[in-house]
């Protein structure tokens, strides 16, 4: 058995280049929602020094000077390109687990030689490039964690070809020694710090720790990672991610808002989003956090207010969330504040199947109504039916000044082909 991790290089920037031929050889960066931060930079832009996670306004001037092409996130396009990429990769594997919009794990049940795996990686890469026009890197390993490390090596190491096999002990030692502990899948920077105190400075030293001891010291998750680095399969995907312990929906406004009605509409729409997500994972929430704040970049002093409300009984009914938001609003809103961002979070989440009823406070959840609401929106498209609290006309639409066309999902946007 073999695992592979395939991921697209600078996915969003690469997607922008597929159907806009003018961009192919140009430096391209993609901005986050509301054009706030850089979320992707193509290799050409990277070479010019433009990096991910930098606020756009900080580099705007430099980008203009360098002739950088700036794009807003076009999720409709990326989602379609992503499914094309995943479908293409799936043809090669026995099973595929889509891990995020730009990466998937593939499982192979057969056994072939190391050099044949390497060739297969090149073949997958070539096919995805030919058929979808996205550049992908492929890393193979006997466990998902090693596949992830191999993927890292397929791109980052000198002489990288986009395909890498991490099987032999010699190879493992060589590669893991070059990787920081935080480059290992599942190890965060906080854990890295703790490990460095213990004198563990790279992924190889980490893999040499007794797994049991790591488990005792940290958690079973860390123990599993150590075992996986030694070729023992511990992480099996079954198509289900663990349910989230908290669910947030937040967004900054395209333009600052000052009206209470606008803030209410925005918060209500966040309440809808978290409600839907909560029901999707069959959970209920006992607490809700509602917050709004102004921008730290504005001249006025920063204003930030956050309200926590605890429900008498756990709920999954959007009407309760909207009520909580409306009540919180009277405390949060200030007439002279220019609000920049707001959001709603559900916390204290538990599985709705094991929720205990309260003897004195019966639940007011209308499960059937919520089921009908979600059913309609699943079938006829998001936002077919929504709460009036959210407002009919969205005044807080996302700012996406540099949005590309939806070349593959909207008829009016299909690519034009010159026959003159």
């Amino acid at each position, binding site marked *: 058995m073999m695992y592979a991790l395939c991921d697209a290089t600078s996915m969003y920037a690469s997607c922008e280049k597929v*159907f806009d*031929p*003018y961009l*192919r*050889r140009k430096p391209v960066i993609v901005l986050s929602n509301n054009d706030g931060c850089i979320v992707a930079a193509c290799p050409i832009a990277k070479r010019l020094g433009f990096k991910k996670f930098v606020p756009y306004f900080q580099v705007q001037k430099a980008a203009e000077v360098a002739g950088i092409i700036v794009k807003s996130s076009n999720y409709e396009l990326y989602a379609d390109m992503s*499914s*094309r*990429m995943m*479908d*293409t990769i799936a043809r090669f594997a026995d099973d595929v687990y889509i891990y995020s919009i730009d990466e998937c794990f593939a499982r192979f049940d057969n056994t072939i030689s190391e050099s044949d795996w390497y060739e297969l990686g090149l073949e997958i890469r070539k096919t995805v490039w*030919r*058929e*979808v*026009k996205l550049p992908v890197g492929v890393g193979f390993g006997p466990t998902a964690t090693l596949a992830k490390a191999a993927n890292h090596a397929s791109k980052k190491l000198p002489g990288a070809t986009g395909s890498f096999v991490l099987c032999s002990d010699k190879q493992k030692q060589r590669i893991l020694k070059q990787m920081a502990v935080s480059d290992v899948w599942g190890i965060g920077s906080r854990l890295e710090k703790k490990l460095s105190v213990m004198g563990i400075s790279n992924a190889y030293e980490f893999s040499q720790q007794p797994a049991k001891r790591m488990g005792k010291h940290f958690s079973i998750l860390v123990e599993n990672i150590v075992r996986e680095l030694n070729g023992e399969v511990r992480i099996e995907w079954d198509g289900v991610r663990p349910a989230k312990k908290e669910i947030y929906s937040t967004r900054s406004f395209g333009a600052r808002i000052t009206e209470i009605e606008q803030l209410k509409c925005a918060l209500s729409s966040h309440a809808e989003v978290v409600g839907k997500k909560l029901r999707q994972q069959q959970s209920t929430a006992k607490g809700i956090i509602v917050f709004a704040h102004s921008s730290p970049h504005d001249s006025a002093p920063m204003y930030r207010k956050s309200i926590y409300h605890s429900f008498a009984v756990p709920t999954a009914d959007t009407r309760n969330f909207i009520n909580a938001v409306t009540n919180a609003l009277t405390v949060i809103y200030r007439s002279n504040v220019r609000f920049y961002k707001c959001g709603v979070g559900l916390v204290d989440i538990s599985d709705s199947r094991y929720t205990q009823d309260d003897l004195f406070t019966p639940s007011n959840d209308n499960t059937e109504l919520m089921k009908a609401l979600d059913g309609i929106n699943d*079938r*006829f498209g998001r936002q077919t039916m929504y709460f009036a609290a959210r407002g009919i006309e969205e005044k807080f639409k996302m700012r996406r000044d540099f949005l590309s066309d939806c*070349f*593959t*999902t909207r*008829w*009016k946007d*299909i*690519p*034009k*082909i*010159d*026959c*003159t």
Partner: protein
Amino acid sequence: MLKFIPIKAQAGLVGFESPATEYTEQGLDLDTLLIDKPSATYIGLAQGDSMTGCGIFDGDLLIVSRAEPIIDMAVVVALLNGVFVCKRIDKVNRCLLSDAEGRTPYRLTEGDEFSIEGVVTRSIRLHKKLSHQLKK
């Protein structure tokens, strides 16, 4: 490709089930007929009259497959210096050929930005104007 929700036609009659019931949701779907590999296929809009000789007219829809092998003289979509063009590919002479009276072949040179962006597998003529607006 473009997704829609199949809705069963109902006659409003009850009594016995139509013997054709299990076929009602099938319908005729042009995607299945015209598109061999959806993940590698895209649809473009032809603009211009240089390919009328092979039946491609201004305003036709082109179904383009990136999975198709590129054989000599195939009608392809290519990226030529920042623009998508539709031409016949003459692999032997490294030329792009138009398919209409009085057009000269375009010989590819070192300095050209060029790549083949798929083979035109089908083209669709819109004899009556669409209710959608395709051109902007």
